[in-house]
């Protein structure tokens, strides 16, 4: 299982099923975290993980032509997550926050940071999540890939299969909206 990604891809393209299992082990966390950031809940993130790898498996014959597997994988995952976001449009997931205080208490008890720090961090994450949820799917994905995941604009353009100018535009609009929503938080930190 210590094979490099190109080696795993080569073996997988040659029909080695175990190489595919190696790719799943290596990349499922990346897909899960990205999907969770985009969709805001475990169930949808889990669905994206399953569907992404099933789609990769189906398209294994194309893998020999793929130069950047990570971008290819993230593209498959974000495309599916964007589809889910579009289906969910109008169905706010804010109801899930109803149980937050209890969950927060449990997490506070489990972790090393002080309860005060943890609580503030949790509140901040919820604020960011809610702010991101207000963005349309493409803007949200662009902001997440660039500002959270750290992909360059060129990489985001490759992942989302759009011109780099579109990425710049979407990112600019997304940041503008986020600044307006998180104005209080951003001003408080001055």
């Amino acid at each position, binding site marked *: 299982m210590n094979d490099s990604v190109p080696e795993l891809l080569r073996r997988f393209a040659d029909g080695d099923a175990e190489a595919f299992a190696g790719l799943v082990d290596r990349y499922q966390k990346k897909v899960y975290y990205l999907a969770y950031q985009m969709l805001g809940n475990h169930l949808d993130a889990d669905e994206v993980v399953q569907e992404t790898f099933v789609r990769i498996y189906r398209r294994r014959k194309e893998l020999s032509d793929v130069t950047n597997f990570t971008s290819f994988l993230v593209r498959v995952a974000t495309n599916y997550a964007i589809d889910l976001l579009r289906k969910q449009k109008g169905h706010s997931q804010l109801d899930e926050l109803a149980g937050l205080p209890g969950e927060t208490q449990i997490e506070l008890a489990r972790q090393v940071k002080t309860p005060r720090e943890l609580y503030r961090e949790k509140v901040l994450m919820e604020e960011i999540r809610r702010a991101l949820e207000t963005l349309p799917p493409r803007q949200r994905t662009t902001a997440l890939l660039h500002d959270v995941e750290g992909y360059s*604009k060129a990489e985001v353009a490759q992942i989302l299969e759009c011109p780099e100018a579109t990425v710049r535009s979407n990112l600019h609009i997304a940041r503008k909206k986020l600044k307006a929503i998180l104005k209080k938080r951003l001003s408080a930190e001055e």
Partner: protein
Amino acid sequence: MTCWYFRSLVDDLVDHELPLSLENAVREHLAVCSDCRKEYDQSVRLKAVLSEFSVPEPEPGYWQESAALIRALTIEAPALVSVPAEIGQRSRERRSFYRSLAAVAASLTLFFGSLMIDSPWGNTALETAAIQSPEYPAATSTATARVMGGGYILEDEQALIARSVLLVGTPGMAFTRTGMLGAMGTDQKH
């Protein structure tokens, strides 16, 4: 150059993507324009806040379960995932086949059902009742009885059977006949 121009470059400045000469020009402007400076500071803080965005870890054991499920959906079920486009087609064909089968079965039931009505075996009870009934010749003379394949069924009985077949349906044929005969027991005697 106007504030609007400098603000359009703030994103690139935050992302460290400006050529050095342009970066210096923007910084010089920020040093003298408080509004643009405020815009820049908020952009820097937003990027810092987004870079901290994280999601909760899934339950312990999730990664193993997820990998196992992906394996079951792909490596261990290659036939299902390798021909996904055909699944819908197959399903439609299967439904069409079952519909045709149901139509043939219904036709056969009707056919054999009508044979049973006509057969001496099917009409044994009627015949016996008719032969044993002293009133039967009178019924024959008034043309209220008909000869059908060696059995005798009164016209109003035939109409009743036809109505029952329509109401109960072909699978209920045997029950209908039995029930009819039982119910008509009194009629046979007059």
